[in-house]
């Protein structure tokens, strides 16, 4: 312990150097692991980390407005723990949580701190497993080598494998298929971009197709049910970033076929359904979804009609930049180019680790491809290309604000705005409507801004009366005026009015700092 603490970790071949960063498109590895662990029902994660590193709890409670306590506990590393060694404390915290809440599984999550300390977390887990009634597992992710998305993908696969192997050992692994065609939906998770709404939409789609949903993982799933996964006829992985490893494992071990076509946009949704049809028929189902696809496309979904409408005609040839994760950026590029006739001048992804796939998907639909997680490079590209609209992440929205270009948000990193109260899926046929709205509103918002600029706004009256009112008989001292200016803009007018009212009532002609504060005390101005 002592020797390790004082030194840095051994060279491992990584030669990336310190870099100046202002923005991250994907979180660190432990966020991915925690997203998986806390998506499951009755699974608890223990982080071995210094105070404050469990901000995942804040994100889940705040961004997702989660009602339940996030099942993540930080086993706090402080100076004392560093001096004494961490094993005792981590093991205690695992067994304590096991007693307190009887989780089915406790996942010990490596952090940047535990990685640097080079702690033998597997040993901690083995020790804790001796006393714990539930299962204890060490998430197998290298905190410095993989990001949130890769770690999430790996952790899900690891948990699935753990429970399938456990069931197999116990001879408790049902492998016969369900009577009716059925599907596992893999990759729905907490803090995912519109995941909850997408999941509802996918379940609806499967129900329309007469397919039973066998399991949805990890969101809301019980680890006890993971052994049922092989009973489904096929796996559906809607997001490329989360679930592919699990699907590949299930394919290798159980020969389960997988559909990894994201049903986003009218064309891709149809392609996804046709792939499902092919897989089911190969297993003897005899289904024909062509009529369903045609009906949905032409009569139910409004998106195909929108493409033919005069509104969309006006978007023809308009320039757009698309940037996001692989799933959403690729799908959006295809929708804009194929379904709306919009000219995608640049399509980009921050999923550098999976760049080849992205290039293969979008190359024929755009002028340029950008693979980067440097927000500066994307900002520069947008400034250079001057598109009429951007479809990107919160960062591109911010860039768009600076450059006065409207931006529709289509991908993580997630923001509280990605957890709307109303129903906003991106996938399936309702998803096509939502995306059409997003596209239309983004472009027209840009046009409105343009018109406002030309005509100087709708309400020209307000422009004239803005600022210091001309009829004010009161004299603000420089200091008081400066303090007033520090009051946030949206309440400044009210504070000013109340302060002046206060001064008038007392027959004061000058508003000094003292008067300003006295007014605040008196009337709560």
């Amino acid at each position: 312990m002592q020797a390790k603490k004082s030194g840095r970790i051994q060279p491992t071949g990584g030669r990336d150097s310190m870099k100046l960063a202002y923005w991250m498109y994907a979180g660190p590895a432990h966020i991915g692991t925690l997203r998986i662990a806390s998506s499951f029902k009755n699974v608890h994660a223990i982080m071995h980390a210094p105070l404050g590193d469990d901000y995942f709890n804040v994100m889940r409670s705040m961004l997702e407005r989660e009602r339940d306590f996030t099942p993540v506990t930080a086993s706090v590393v402080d100076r004392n723990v560093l001096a004494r060694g961490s094993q005792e404390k981590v093991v205690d915290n695992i067994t304590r949580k096991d007693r307190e809440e009887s989780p089915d599984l406790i996942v010990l999550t490596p952090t940047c701190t535990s990685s640097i300390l080079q702690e033998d977390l597997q040993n901690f887990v083995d020790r804790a497993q001796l006393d714990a009634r539930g299962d204890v597992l060490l998430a197998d992710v290298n905190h410095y080598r993989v990001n949130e998305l890769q770690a999430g993908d790996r952790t899900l696969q690891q948990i699935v494998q753990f429970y399938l192997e456990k069931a197999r050992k116990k001879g408790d692994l049902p492998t016969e298929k369900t009577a009716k065609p059925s599907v596992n939906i893999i990759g729905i998770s907490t803090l995912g971009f519109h995941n909850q709404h997408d999941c509802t939409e996918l379940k609806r789609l499967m129900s329309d197709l007469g397919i039973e949903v066998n399991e949805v993982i990890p969101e809301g799933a019980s680890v006890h049910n993971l052994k049922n996964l092989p009973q489904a006829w096929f796996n559906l992985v809607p997001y490329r970033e989360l679930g592919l490893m699990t699907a590949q494992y299930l394919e290798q071990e159980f020969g389960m076929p997988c559909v990894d076509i994201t049903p986003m946009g009218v064309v891709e949704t149809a392609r996804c359904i046709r792939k499902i049809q092919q897989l089911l028929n190969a297993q003897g189902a005899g289904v024909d979804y062509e009529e369903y696809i045609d009906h949905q496309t032409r009569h139910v979904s409004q998106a195909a009609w929108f493409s033919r409408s005069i509104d969309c005609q006006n978007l023809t040839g308009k320039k757009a930049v698309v940037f996001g994760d692989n799933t959403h950026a690729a799908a959006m590029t295809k929708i804009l180019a194929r379904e709306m006739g919009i000219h995608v001048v640049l399509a980009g992804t921050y999923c550098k680790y999976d760049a080849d796939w992205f290039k293969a998907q979008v190359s024929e639909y755009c002028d340029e491809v950008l693979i980067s997680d440097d927000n500066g490079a994307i900002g520069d590209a947008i400034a250079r290309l001057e598109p009429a609209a951007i479809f990107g992440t919160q960062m591109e929205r911010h860039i768009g604000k600076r450059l006065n270009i409207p931006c529709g948000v289509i991908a993580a990193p997630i923001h509280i705005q990605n957890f709307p109260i109303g129903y906003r899926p991106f996938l399936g046929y309702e998803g096509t409507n939502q995306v059409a709205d997003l596209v239309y509103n983004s472009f027209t918002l840009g046009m409105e801004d343009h018109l406002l600029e030309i005509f100087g706004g709708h309400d020209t009256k307000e422009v004239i009366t803005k600022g210091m009112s001309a009829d004010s008989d009161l004299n603000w001292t420089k200091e008081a005026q400066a303090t007033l200016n520090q009051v946030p803009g949206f309440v400044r007018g009210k504070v000013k009015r109340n302060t002046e009212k206060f001064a008038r009532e007392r027959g004061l002609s000058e508003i000094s700092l003292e008067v300003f504060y006295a007014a605040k005390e008196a009337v709560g101005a």
Partner: protein
Amino acid sequence: MTVAQEPTGLNFDCETGNYHTFCPISCVAWLYQKIEDSFFLVIGTKTCGYFLQNAMGVMIFAEPRYAMAELEEGDISAQLNDYEELKRLCLQIKRDRNPSVIVWIGTCTTEIIKMDLEGLAPKLEAEIGIPIVTARANGLDYAFTQGEDTVLAAMAHRCPSKVTSEAEKEERNAIQKLLTFGRKAEETAPTSEPKHPPLVLFGSLPDPVVTNLTLELKKQGVEVSGWLPAKRYTELPVIEEGYYVAGVNPFLSRTATTLMRRRKCKLIGAPFPIGPDGTRAWIEKICSVFGIEPQGLAEREAKIWESLEDYLQLIRGKSVFFMGDNLLEISLARFLIRCGMTVPEIGIPYMDKRYQAAELALLEKTCQEMGVSTPNIVEKPDNYNQLQRIKAIQPDLVITGMAHANPLEARGINTKWSVEFTFAQIHGFSNARDILELVTRPLRRNNSLKDLGWEKLVQEEATV
């Protein structure tokens, strides 16, 4: 010497539990705004960066004056030269932003790999020509608001000690000195000069609050010579041996110690100027040190209480439980007890009984005067245990970090985010109303929704 004795009537407990507060690097969120010519460079990992971006939401907006130096595997494994790497980044910052000061915020990672930031800074500072201040705002040693403490303690070393300006002053006063024949300075000083030794206040507050507190003291004839931090790094206050210093925030014990030990200042240990009671006690204590009889403070305090009456009616007799987050807990609890509330427990990440002695004494006195039992003060609380206690006590209000607020609300327990008290303007007489505006908001909200019958919004019996 002005520090009060440790109070004895309070019950202290240390759970050393698993608890959540924000990481102390979050201080960049308010300090970069406060110190307008600064640049904050957080030297850490993706974990730090993602926290600031997603939990604090500062990254996009702070971009011009804040960045992460993201340590990669090469840095951690010491294959690369820290000095050259930091030099490369700081030169880039100088070129792009040209700040008056670069503040290096050390993190858990720089602590554990023992990156010698304090050793590197002076060398680099000399080479690139921009002051570099180093603060170890890491989660191994500190909680949330203590990040500010580490920065201000580091800046206390950088306050000019007036050697040059004193020489100038001597020169200017040379003739007058001859005329006064060595009589004491006070007798000859112009009336506008303060009649007391210089006083410097420390703690980062929004500018309107700084002006407000400065004015309150001025009314009593106390001149504030400067604030640490100032609006600009180049305007850091002059600090000489023997100057008096007073803190405005309860989480600045390191800064206080640094000012006393390293700058030989005299600390005025007072309750903190939060709530009308605390503000009055703070002013009175400062006045008493300077031998000034404060004027009209009792009336002033009474008037503020009078103006708070509509809010007081909502909270009198109600209980408030502090889970512990930002170290403002003792001051807020003392004020709320004075408002007529009861406080069963005050969780607090770190309790410096010496620096907070006057505040603790006032808390104890307030409890006695209001006839309520003293709160149990729990240092480094265990959040899980606290949730069991909350379930048992069913307090009327829980002031808590962001992680627990929504789940408690869903179980019918009123909450207020502790972090709001960190960012709201709560100091001084005028802002007492703003504290109660926050405290009463959940109660007022629930009053307006109370007939709907939606108190519990979780299905199964809550396992708080």
